[in-house]
C-alpha cells in the first residue's frame, strides 16, 4: 500500500508544527523500545496475531487486512510495526462517527506500550477515546463465558461445533443471560449452498471477521432453530484481563482474516483473544494444523484455574424428548394431534385430563408445532393461528409452568475422548497373518465411546490404514478415506429423520485371481433407524439403508463400476465400555464390471479408559466369486 504509506508520511511529518518537538520524543521512545526488545515480546506478537508458519521457519501475522498495520510490512515485520505504531500515536486527529484517533483505533497496543514505556503525558498527550469507553460502558463487562453449541440431531457435521465468547454484564444473572452480548468470529458470506460454502471455506475463500451480536439471537439460532444443546463455560478472567480482551476486540474491529474451515476458524481465533487477555496462556500453539472447536474448548478447560463453572442449556428438542419420556403415550398422542391440527384446543379429551396433565399436553403441543414450523415440516397456512390458540388455551389454565428439567449429561463435550486416534493390531485373513496400523487424525466414529458425543453420529477426516502381510515386504496402504460421515437418527412418533451416510476415498478391491489394487470409491446411501427399547436397556439402534457405490480404477473393463443394494445393522452398547456394530451389506454392481460384493461383519469395542480401547473385528466377505473370512484385534489410543 505505497499510497497509504505516503499519505501517512505526509500526515505525520509535514504539516503539524508540534511534530518537530515531538520528533525527539518519538526517537527516544523507539530507542527505549529497541533496548527492551519489546517487538519480540509475546504480548506484542499476540496483539499483532503473529504465528509461526506451519511449514517453514519464521512467522507472520494472520491478519489479512492492511488497515490493521501501520507499517507497510507490518504483516511480517513486528519491529517496524511497533515503531510505526508509536509514530501514529502522536496524531492529534479528532474522533468522528466513522473515524478514530490511532490511539483509540489501536487501543490495546496503546495501553500496552504506554505501560511498558511509561509515556510522558505532556509530550505524548492521551486521547479521550469516547467511542471506545461508551462501547465498554454499554457492555458493562463483568465476566467472560466461552459458549459451545454442541452437535445436533442428524447432522454429524455439526459435531464440528462452533464457539463464541459471551460478555456477561455486571447486573445479569442466570435468568437474564439472554441480554448479554456475544463475540464471534465467522466467515462473512450470504452463501446458502452448503457445498460452495464448504469448498471456499476450506481454501480461505471468505473474509473472516469478528462481530458482536445480542446473545438472544445466538440462543435462538442454536437452541431453537438448529436444536443444539449449548454449553456455557464461565471463565475466571479478572477485570484487568477482561479489559485487555475488550480493548483487543475493539482494536480488531472490522479487521479481516482469511477464513479457513479447518485451522483459522472461529474457535482458533477466539483462543487468540484469550491469549491476549491473560498473557502466558498458550492455547493456539496446540492447533497448528487444525482446530476442532470441541478440542479448543478442551484446551481452555485444561488450563489450570481458567474455568469457573459450566452451565448446560438444553435445546428445544432436548426439552421435548424429556417431556415425552415423562408422559403417558395417550397424552403425547394428544399433543401431537393438537400440533398437527387434528383436534382443537377445546377438545373434550383435553378438558377431561387432570389440570396439570392438560397444561403439559398444551405445552408439548405448542413446542412440537413450533418445532415443525421451524424445521419447515408444517406448511399449513393456518399453522400460526393454531399455535396462538394453544398458547391462549394454556394462558387460561391457572397452573404454574410444567417445563421439565433436563438432566445435565454426565460427560461434557470437552470431557469425551480426544479426537485423534492411532491403532495397532494384528489379524488373519483366510489364514494369511497381517499386522496393521491405523491413523485417524479426527474425529469420531460410531464405535468410539459416546460419552460427550452424539450417539449414532460419525464424522471422520483422512482416516488411513496400512497393512503388512507376513512374508511380504513393507507396508501397503489398505484404505484412505478423506471423508466419512454416517448419521443414524432413530425415528419415533414425534421425530422422523432420514438417516444417511457418505464416504469417499481409496480402498483395496479383491479381483478374480486374487490381486487387490487400490480403487477409488464414492459410496453413499440413505435409510431409516429405530431404537430398540427392549434390547440392551434401550441402548440399541437398528437400521436399514439403501446404498450406492461408484468404484473407479484402471482394472475395471470400462474404468468404473456402479453398484447398489441394501444394508442392515444393529448398533448397541452392551455396557458403558462394551459396544458393537453388527452389519450385513449386499451390493450388486450392474454397470461396468458385473459382480457382487457382500459383507457380514461384527465389530466390537471395549473401552479400557476414556482415551484407549480394544477392538475386535470379525467378517465374512465376498467380491466377484471369492469368499474369505478375516478377523483382527487392535488397540486404539486417543490423543
Amino acid at each position: 500500500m505505497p499510497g497509504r504509506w505516503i499519505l501517512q508520511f505526509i500526515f505525520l511529518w509535514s504539516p503539524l508544527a508540534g511534530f518537530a518537538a515531538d520528533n525527539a520524543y518519538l526517537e527516544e521512545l523507539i530507542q527505549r523500545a529497541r533496548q527492551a526488545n519489546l517487538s519480540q515480546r509475546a504480548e506484542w506478537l499476540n496483539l499483532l496475531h503473529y504465528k509461526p508458519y506451519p511449514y517453514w521457519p519464521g512467522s507472520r501475522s494472520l491478519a489479512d487486512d492492511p488497515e490493521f498495520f501501520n507499517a507497510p510490512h507490518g504483516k511480517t515485520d513486528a519491529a517496524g510495526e511497533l515503531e510505526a505504531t508509536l509514530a501514529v500515536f502522536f496524531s492529534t486527529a479528532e474522533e468522528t462517527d466513522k473515524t478514530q484517533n490511532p490511539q483509540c483505533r489501536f487501543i490495546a497496543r496503546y495501553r500496552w506500550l504506554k505501560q511498558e514505556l511509561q509515556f510522558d503525558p505532556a509530550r505524548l498527550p492521551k486521547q479521550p477515546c469516547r467511542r471506545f469507553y461508551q462501547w465498554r460502558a454499554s457492555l458493562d463487562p463483568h465476566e467472560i463465558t466461552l459458549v459451545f453449541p454442541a452437535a445436533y440431531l442428524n447432522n454429524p457435521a455439526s459435531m464440528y461445533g462452533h464457539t463464541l465468547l459471551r460478555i456477561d454484564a455486571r447486573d445479569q444473572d442466570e435468568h437474564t443471560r439472554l441480554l448479554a452480548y456475544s463475540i464471534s468470529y465467522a466467515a462473512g458470506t450470504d452463501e446458502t449452498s452448503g457445498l460452495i460454502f464448504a469448498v471456499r471455506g476450506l481454501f480461505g475463500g471468505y473474509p473472516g471477521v469478528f462481530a458482536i451480536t445480542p446473545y438472544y439471537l445466538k440462543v435462538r439460532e442454536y437452541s431453537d432453530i438448529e436444536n443444539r444443546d449449548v454449553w456455557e463455560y464461565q471463565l475466571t478472567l479478572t477485570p484487568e484481563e477482561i479489559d485487555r480482551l475488550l480493548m483487543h476486540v475493539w482494536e480488531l474491529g472490522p479487521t479481516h482474516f482469511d477464513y479457513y474451515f479447518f485451522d483459522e476458524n472461529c474457535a482458533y481465533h477466539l483462543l487468540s483473544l484469550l491469549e491476549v487477555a491473560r498473557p502466558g496462556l498458550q492455547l493456539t500453539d496446540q492447533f497448528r494444523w487444525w482446530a476442532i472447536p470441541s478440542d479448543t474448548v478442551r484446551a481452555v478447560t485444561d488450563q489450570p484455574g481458567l474455568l469457573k463453572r459450566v452451565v448446560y442449556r438444553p435445546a428445544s428438542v432436548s426439552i421435548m424428548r424429556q417431556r415425552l419420556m415423562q408422559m403417558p403415550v395417550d397424552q403425547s398422542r394428544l399433543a401431537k394431534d393438537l400440533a398437527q391440527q387434528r383436534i382443537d384446543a377445546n377438545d373434550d379429551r383435553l378438558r377431561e385430563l387432570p389440570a396439570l396433565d392438560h397444561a403439559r399436553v398444551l405445552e408439548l403441543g405448542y413446542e412440537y408445532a413450533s418445532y415443525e414450523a421451524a424445521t419447515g415440516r408444517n406448511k399449513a397456512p393456518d399453522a400460526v393461528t393454531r399455535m396462538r390458540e394453544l398458547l391462549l388455551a394454556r394462558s387460561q389454565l391457572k397452573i404454574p409452568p410444567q417445563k421439565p428439567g433436563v438432566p445435565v449429561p454426565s460427560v461434557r463435550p470437552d470431557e469425551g475422548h480426544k479426537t485423534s486416534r492411532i491403532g495397532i493390531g494384528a489379524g488373519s485373513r483366510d489364514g494369511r497373518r497381517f499386522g496393521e496400523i491405523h491413523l485417524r487424525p479426527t474425529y469420531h466414529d460410531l464405535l468410539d465411546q459416546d460419552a460427550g458425543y452424539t450417539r449414532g453420529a460419525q464424522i471422520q477426516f483422512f482416516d488411513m490404514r496400512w497393512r503388512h502381510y507376513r512374508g511380504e515386504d513393507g507396508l501397503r496402504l489398505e484404505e484412505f478415506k478423506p471423508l466419512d460421515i454416517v448419521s443414524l437418527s432413530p425415528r419415533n412418533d414425534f421425530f422422523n429423520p432420514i438417516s444417511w451416510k457418505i464416504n469417499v476415498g481409496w480402498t483395496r478391491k479383491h479381483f478374480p485371481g486374487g490381486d487387490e489394487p487400490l480403487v477409488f470409491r464414492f459410496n453413499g446411501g440413505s435409510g431409516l433407524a429405530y431404537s430398540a427399547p427392549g434390547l440392551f436397556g434401550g441402548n440399541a439402534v437398528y437400521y436399514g439403508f439403501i446404498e450406492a457405490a461408484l468404484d473407479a480404477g484402471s482394472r475395471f473393463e470400462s474404468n468404473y463400476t456402479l453398484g447398489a443394494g441394501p444394508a442392515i445393522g444393529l448398533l448397541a452398547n452392551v455396557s458403558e465400555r462394551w459396544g458393537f456394530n453388527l452389519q450385513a451389506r449386499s451390493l450388486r454392481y450392474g454397470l461396468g464390471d458385473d459382480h457382487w460384493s457382500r459383507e457380514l461383519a461384527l465389530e466390537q469395542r471395549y473401552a479400557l479408559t476414556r482415551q484407549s480401547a480394544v477392538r475386535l473385528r470379525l467378517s465374512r466377505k465376498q467380491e466377484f466369486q471369492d469368499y474369505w473370512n478375516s478377523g483382527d484385534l487392535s488397540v486404539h489410543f486417543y490423543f
Partner: protein
Amino acid sequence: MLNKKLMAVAVAGLFSTGAMAAGENNIGCGWGSKVFDGQRGIAPQVLGATTNGTSGNQTFAITSGTSGCTQDGVVKSNWKTAMFIDGNKEKLARDMSTGSGESLESLAKLIGVEDQHKAAFFQTTKDNFAHIFSTDNSSTDQVLASLKQVLASDSELAQYSQSI
C-alpha cells in the same frame, strides 16, 4: 412517544436498505424477524452444519460507527426493548402463556421491573396474553403498544409502562 419510536423504526428500516447498498455491514432496526424468515428449510440447515458461516445481517460489525439502532455494534439503549421483543416474539408468547421463563425474565429486566413486582408482572402478562398477542402474527409495534397499555391499566405496574 411510542409513535415517534415506531416512526423511527420505519425510517431506520429505510436507511438500512441504503446502508446495505453502500456496502456497510450493518442493518437498522426491524431486522430481527426478517433475518429468521430466511432461516427455515434445508439450505440453511446445511449451511448451519458447516457451523462457521454467518450472513452479515445477523451480526453487527464492531467499530463501524453509528448506524440504524446500534453504535459500534451495541444496541442503543432506547432501542433495546423493541429489538428484544422483535428478536424473541415467539419465545415471549410462549413464556407469557405459562407466566414464566427466561425471555420474560429478561424483558422484565429490560423495562426495569423491580423484584417485588416481578410476580405481578408475570401474572398480568399471562392474564392478558390474548390482548398482548392480539393477532396470529402480531408485529413488534403491536406487541409493544398493547404491553404498554396492559401495564398502564394495572395500578401496581403502571409505573413501568413509561419505560416501554
